[in-house]
């Protein structure tokens, strides 16, 4: 099942320019191992049984999953600075949660507003983002969807965003602070 699933960000144009820290086969092994470890941690949470038999079944299942999709989960490019990215991601999540909470209060006040029709003013806005990697585009797009009155309509692979906003106030903050945060997170 795993013939040649190259993902777009594995073979970026600038890969030839930078000198890789690890060789390709080593990277393959590392990405397999990381996938296996993530899967095994998930398995232990799911299973909740720590006896020998169930852990053995877990090893087999995780090996199958890692074999099927190690190139899907962990991109082989940029595997060197993975721990730093994850640490930054953990720092990003609480900020995002706070923003999501504010967004929800805003939408909530709209939903219970008796003069709803007069308050909202839906429209489409477009802007160009400086982010380039698919992963950072993905994080940014989903963060936009979760935060104040905005839903991502379309993202092109070059970073052009089309966003549906519910009222004037919501569209003001785009791209703004969140883009900075995501750029810093992914090291762009």
């Amino acid at each position, binding site marked *: 099942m795993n013939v040649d699933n190259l993902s777009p960000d594995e073979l970026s144009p600038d890969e030839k320019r930078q000198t890789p820290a690890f060789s390709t086969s080593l990277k393959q092994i590392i990405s397999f191992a990381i*996938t296996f470890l993530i899967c095994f941690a998930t398995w232990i949470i*799911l299973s909740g049984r720590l006896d020998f038999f169930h852990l053995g079944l877990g090893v087999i299942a995780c090996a199958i999953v890692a074999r099927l999709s190690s190139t899907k*989960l962990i991109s082989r490019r940029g595997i060197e600075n993975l721990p730093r990215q994850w640490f930054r991601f953990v720092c990003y999540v609480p900020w995002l949660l706070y923003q999501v909470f504010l967004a929800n209060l805003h939408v909530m006040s709209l939903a219970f507003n008796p003069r709803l029709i007069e308050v909202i003013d839906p429209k489409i806005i477009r802007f160009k983002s400086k982010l380039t990697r*698919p992963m950072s585009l993905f994080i940014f797009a989903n963060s936009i969807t979760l935060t104040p009155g905005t839903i991502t309509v379309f*993202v092109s692979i070059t970073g052009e965003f089309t966003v549906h906003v519910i009222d004037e106030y919501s569209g003001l903050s785009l791209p703004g602070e969140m883009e900075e945060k995501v750029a810093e997170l992914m090291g762009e």
Partner: protein
Amino acid sequence: MKRLGLIAIIIFGGLLFSITFELPDLGDASSPASTHVSPYYIEHTLEDTSVPNVVTAILADYRGYDTLFETAVIFSAGLACFFLLRIPERKAPKARFYRHLTTGLTLRIEKGGRIPEESKEFERIDSAWVPNDVIINMTCRLVVPFVQLFALYVIAHGHHSPGGGFQGGVIFGAAIILFAISNNLRSTTRRLSEKSSALLGSGGVIIYLGTGLLCILLGAGFLNYSGLSVFPGLDPVSARSYGILIVEIGVGIAVTAVMVWIYYNLASAGTQEEGL
């Protein structure tokens, strides 16, 4: 005609409702269903098979024949879909579409144009293609492995939690279908072809059947897993437990493959050219 249908539905609905009052109450200990075999299963399952989940033990052990033929029915459903829907490719399409894997750009090649070789650079995609959507692709890349892992967990833990071969197989099939939705049908069939999904489907049924036949060869009845206790380190009780696990794995493989097979045929209206 519509009113006639409504009247018929109301009459039958009323009949069903009135019959509901004749059913025994929920948890009624003296109802026919809970007086004959149920108490036996509830009392003896743990000591017979060492499986805490009574439902799994009944399905895969006490009523093994039933489940065997259920699996066969699922396989024949896939077969029926295949025979009803599958049509070979009728005519060459007007234009072919190729996606450049690095950038996600799509090439449209008219009939008679030079076609790039199927290489690591280009991948042929459906002609009713959906523009490459970064968000959906990335989400599926992240989610598919965990859905697969969850499916394997459901199959492996049928003994202790709700689940087993059928449920786990459905979730695993759904994971593959999710991949097919987020990319397209053509790239999915290149990784898991129709032929191998059919072979896997029959292979799952054969695992089940083979376990039963192995029990006969070892001197016990058909699907009586305690015959497996001749293998070292097994007593009759734990042999039944392991037998259930093997059977569940067979069912899981069969259900996964048949789900994917039916999806291939339904989503492309039998041509296996263009999917959802």
